[in-house]
Every structure is written in structure tokens, then in C-alpha cells.
């Protein structure tokens, strides 16, 4: 079964052998190829190259193509301010001074804004990985889009001019439908309605203003378009999980502010899948690879069943998430049992000092030691091991190559003794040469030549 089919089964609420893995690598995709956020989100070739690298390294079952909630706002007249390492921000709100509703002629069309680039990237991704990976088209949810257009006054309007808010939300819902049409036409499998501002209002306001638009949108996606849907929120949306479920998306996605087990109980009552919620900052950005593995392993162990669950970061991954952390999370999601055993062994390996390290100062020939989570299952590890095997093929008997898989207890002890922090990694004669990022053959050969 492909990862895509696994995710489809989850979105159809069927039993699955493991929970699907959907890394929300938005701007972080750029970091994998050295592109900044503006390059990534404005240049189609850069975007596709970065997304393919996400697909190669993190082996996602599902993958967003663009994570930029400002795409529609830009088309509708908001000015954007670009940053190097995060999506653009909205700097002006065209309806700030006038409570008006744009007319239907303002709705996005395929040639407007950055849509030509985005739709082309979607088609190229569909062609490249669409057979095996489910592709997510992310659109800006109606409430967040309304706030982009109107500014913070949208909150006051909820008290002062309810009819206006409903009219503006109706326009934003029409915009969401239009974006969904375009994304589905470009091959997207799942439409994610990303509405982070939902966490800033009460469930009463949600019901008063958002239940109807969301219900209409998810019905449209399911019945008229035959597409899967998801509702993404950020922040503490705990109180609104139930009202969100009642709008009947196929899945929802939450961040670390939500108790995901409690939320899953609610979602299960409505037969809605739930995704989340690896903490973005404390674990993914600032944690270690071990922290990421352990978080995902523990999260999955606490679930009553894998059905209706998707392993995912809490929201768009920060640009600078260390690649080894995402690799760790991926491996824990994809090879949960092996990683659970590894986490157990990691703790036990504290006292295991039996392992003997080579006498690096007196080696007969250069020694490449490849430390992996498991090159048979971890994509990044496979490529790292492949790089080392390529060198062995080129250098033959002039070098030695050995792999240490972290799934074996004695190898964990070896890693600890050598101070290996991140996997996969290549050490040459006992010295760290390549960590997480797979070297090109030229880079690796240059390192080996220096040791010959």
C-alpha cells in the first residue's frame, strides 16, 4: 500500500496498519536546498526542487505543496512584506477603512498573483510524486482571509455589524471554493482550509459566524468535487474542536496547544480524523533528534488506535528546523516499533561501555563510519549510506566502510561513546564529516582524498 493510499484510508476513516505522516514543510522546504522563503514562494523551479527534497528525505505519505496564507490576500489587494525565513506578512488591509464586500469579479483566477507559479508547481509535483504521495492544496480559511482584508476591525464587527461579517465571510468562502477548484484542477488530493484565527474566538462566535461557511465549504469539497478536506487551526482551539467537527471536514489538524488525546476523543465521536501535534519550537526547532523521535513514539503509544490519526507538526514547520530533527520525526512515524525499541535502548545504553572504538590514529586505510537510524527504512539514511557505498565502489580496497544502525543497542552505545548527536552522519577516521545533509560524491571524495 502506498503512503497516499494509507492517508486516503485514514481520511475515509478506515482501519490502518500505521498512522500516516504528513510533514508540513512550507518554508522549511527551502532550507533543504539553501533557498530563502521569498525565493521558494515566488520561483516555481525552486519550489518544486525543494518539495522534491522534502519528499526524498522525509518520505511523507501526504505533503503540502505551498504553505502561504497570503496567496489570496495578495491577489485581493493586500500588500505583502517578505522575509527571508518565514512566509510573507500582510502589511495593509484594503477594507480597513470601509466595511465593504468585494464583488465576485475580484475572486482569484488562474493567471492572477502567484497562482500561475503555484498551479504549475502543483502539476509538476503531481507528475513527479503524485502516484505515491497525497498532495495537499492549502488555502486561506475564510475567517483569516476576512481579517487580512479588513484588519483587526473584523473582531469589532462581530459585535457592531454582524450582517457585514457574514457577507464578508460569504465572499471569503467563495474565494476558498475558487482556490479549491484551481488546486483540484492542478491535481491536489486534499484541500486544507487553514484558518489559524479560529483559535482567537469563542465557540459561540464560531457557531454564529463560521459554522455555516465551513459546513458549506466541506460539503462542497466532498459532494461536488469528490475531494478530501482538512481544517487546520493554530493556537489553543480546544474549546472549538467540537464545533469544528460539526462542520464535517474529513480531518482537522491542531498544534501543541491542544490536548490531542482529548481532542481525538471528540473527533472520534464525529468520525473526523485528527492530525498533529509535534511542537514546532520546543521540539522541532530547538529539540534534539532524540527529542523528536521520542515525542512521536510517545504520542503514537498514547493513542487508543491508529485509525483516524495523522502524525504531523503542529503547523507550518519553522524554516530552520534541523533536518535531522525532521528525519527523526519521520522515522518515528514510519518505523514506530523499531524507534520505540531504540528509545528504550537509548536509555538503557547509558551504562553500556563495553563497545570498543577503533584505534583511529593507526588505521591501515581511511575508515568511513556511517551512523544511521536504519538505512533499510529511513530515506535520508539510505541516501547517506548510498553515498558511502558509492565511495567504496570508487575507492575499492583503499578505504573501509561500515554502517552502524541505531536500531541495535550496541550501536547506540557506540554513538554515545563517540558523541554522535544526529543521524544520519558520516565519520571519517573518527571525525564527524557529514551530519544529516547527504554529501555529493565530489564532497565525499574530497574528504577521503584528504585522508589518504
Amino acid at each position, binding site marked *: 500500500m502506498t503512503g497516499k493510499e494509507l492517508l486516503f484510508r485514514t481520511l475515509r476513516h478506515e482501519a490502518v496498519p500505521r498512522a500516516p505522516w504528513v510533514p508540513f514543510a512550507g518554508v522549511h522546504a527551502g532550507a533543504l536546498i539553501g533557498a530563502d522563503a521569498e525565493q521558494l514562494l515566488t520561483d516555481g523551479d525552486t519550489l518544486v526542487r525543494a518539495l522534491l527534497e522534502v519528499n526524498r528525505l522525509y518520505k511523507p505519505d501526504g505533503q503540502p505543496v505551498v504553505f502561504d496564507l497570503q496567496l489570496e490576500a495578495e491577489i485581493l489587494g493586500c500588500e505583502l512584506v517578505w522575509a527571508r525565513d518565514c512566509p510573507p506578512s500582510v502589511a495593509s488591509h484594503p477594507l480597513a477603512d470601509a466595511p465593504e464586500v468585494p464583488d465576485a469579479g475580484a475572486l482569484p483566477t488562474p493567471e492572477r498573483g502567484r497562482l500561475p507559479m503555484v498551479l504549475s508547481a502543483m502539476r509538476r509535483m503531481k507528475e513527479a510524486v503524485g502516484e505515491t504521495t497525497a498532495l495537499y492544496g492549502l488555502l486561506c480559511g475564510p475567517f483569516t482571509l476576512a481579517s487580512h482584508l479588513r484588519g483587526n476591525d473584523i*473582531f*469589532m464587527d462581530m459585535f457592531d455589524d454582524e450582517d457585514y461579517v457574514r457577507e464578508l465571510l460569504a465572499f471569503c468562502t467563495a474565494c476558498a471554493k475558487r482556490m479549491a477548484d484551481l488546486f483540484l484542477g492542478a491535481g491536489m488530493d486534499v484541500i486544507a482550509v487553514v484558518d489559524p484565527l479560529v483559535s482567537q474566538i469563542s465557540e459561540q462566535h464560531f457557531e454564529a459566524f463560521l459554522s455555516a461557511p465551513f459546513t458549506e465549504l466541506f460539503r462542497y469539497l466532498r459532494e461536488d468535487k469528490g475531494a478530501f478536506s482538512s481544517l487546520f487551526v493554530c493556537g489553543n482551539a480546544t474549546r472549538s474542536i467540537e464545533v469544528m467537527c460539526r462542520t464535517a471536514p474529513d480531518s482537522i489538524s491542531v498544534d501543541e496547544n491542544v490536548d490531542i488525546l482529548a481532542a481525538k476523543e471528540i473527533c472520534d465521536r464525529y468520525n473526523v480524523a485528527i492530525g498533529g501535534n509535534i511542537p*514546532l519550537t*520546543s521540539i522541532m526547532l530547538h529539540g534534539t533528534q532524540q527529542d523528536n523521535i521520542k515525542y512521536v513514539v510517545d504520542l503514537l503509544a498514547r493513542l487508543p488506535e491508529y485509525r483516524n490519526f495523522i502524525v504531523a507538526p503542529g503547523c507550518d514547520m519553522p524554516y530552520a528546523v534541523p533536518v535531522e530533527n525532521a528525519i527523526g520525526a519521520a522515522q518515528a512515524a514510519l518505523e514506530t516499533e523499531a524507534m520505540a525499541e531504540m528509545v528504550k535502548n537509548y536509555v538503557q545504553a547509558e551504562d553500556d561501555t563495553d563497545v570498543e572504538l577503533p584505534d583511529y590514529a593507526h588505521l591501515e586505510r581511511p575508515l568511513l563510519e556511517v551512523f544511521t537510524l536504519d538505512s533499510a527504512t529511513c530515506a535520508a539514511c539510505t541516501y547517506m549510506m548510498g553515498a558511502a557505498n558509492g565511495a567504496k565502489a570508487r575507492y575499492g580496497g583503499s578505504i573501509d566502510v561500515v554502517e552502524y544502525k541505531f536500531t541495535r543497542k550496541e550501536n547506540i552505545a557506540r554513538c554515545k561513546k563517540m558523541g554522535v548527536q544526529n543521524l544520519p552522519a558520516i565519520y571519517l577516521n573518527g571525525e564527524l564529516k557529514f551530519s544529516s545533509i547527504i554529501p555529493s560524491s565530489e564532497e565525499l571524495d574530497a574528504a577521503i582524498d584528504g585522508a589518504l
Partner: protein
Amino acid sequence: MGILNEISEQLQIGKAKLVKELVQQAVDAGIPAGEILTEGLLAGMSMVGERFKNNEIFVPEVLVAARAMNMGAALLKPLLADAGVKASGRVCIGTVKGDLHDIGKNLVKMMMEGRGLEVVDLGTDVPPERYIAAARDQGCRIICCSALLTTTMGVMADVVKCAEAAGIRDSVKILIGGAPVTDAFCAAIGADRYTPDAATAADAAVSLCRGEGAA
């Protein structure tokens, strides 16, 4: 006392016009402006802060309550000046450079004003030097920095360094907050206090202005 309670109650549900009328009635009835402020408006806003902190109310409710408070406070302002009533401290606040998010910053500002503090709003995309200039030139006891992005929270460390370089670090407290910010981050950059929500930020600011330390 009845009318002051009424002001507080109506403020909490955001009835701005009614609050303004009630404040005028209280003034006309001879109640001192300072008493109307503290026992009517600020008492109501304090309740709003508590309920926000407890996740009982959310951004829209806070915004309309703050609007009601401001309408009432505008009536009282000249009277308070005449009576020599002063704010309990002055602070400056802004969202750090590179970050345009202002909802959280505005909430903190409103909560602080609701606790009787005078707040200098520096807006969004504020470079470290502007915080320092505001603190030094306008006599702010506290610099409040907000950031919503993991990529901009690092600017808070620059604010701390700038305050040190300007020689004002000992006389100014630095309060930080925003979605990605944590206690550990606060300790790591040498700021004085992290608070997880707007109401707690206002509590902390009042304590710091009273000289009750960073705890």
C-alpha cells in the same frame, strides 16, 4: 457604589455608549474621577483580564471591552489631570522588527491600560533601538516585546543587548511574550519576565512598576 458596579458590568460586555453615559452620570453625581476610574472602569477591565486568562472570553470580547473602557476614560481624563491622579507607571510596547503581528501586542496594551498603566505604543516592526529610545526619552519603566514568529523572537535578545549597551539595563525591565516564546527562552536571552498571556503580562507589569522584582 451601585453605579460603579454598573459601569464595571457594562464594560465587561462591551457596551461602550452605555459605559460613557454611566461615567457621565457618576461624574454628575459628584463621585471623584479617581474612584470612577479604579472602581468602575479598571475594576471591570480587571475582570475582563481574568476571564481572558481563564479562556472564558477571547479576542473580540476583550477588544469591545477595551473600547468601552477607553470611551469612559476619555471623559475622565481632564478630571483626573485636574485632580493630580497619575498612572501607576509608564511602559512602552511593540512587536519586534520583522514581525507585523499586532493582535497580541494590542491585547497586552489594553490589559495594561486596564490596570492603570500608561502605555507608549511603538507599533509593529520595531527595531531594538526604538525600544531603547522610548524607554530613555519617555521614562518607561518597562520595555514590552512581542513576537509571533520563531524567526523574529531572536530580536528580543538584541533588545536586551541594546539596553545593556545604552547603559539603561539596570533601570528598565524587559518583558517578553508571543506564541513561540517560553520561560527558557526568556532566561536564555537575559530578559526579566516572560508571560504566557496578556492579562498575566499586565499583572507582571504592575508588579514590576511597584518594584516587586522579576518574579
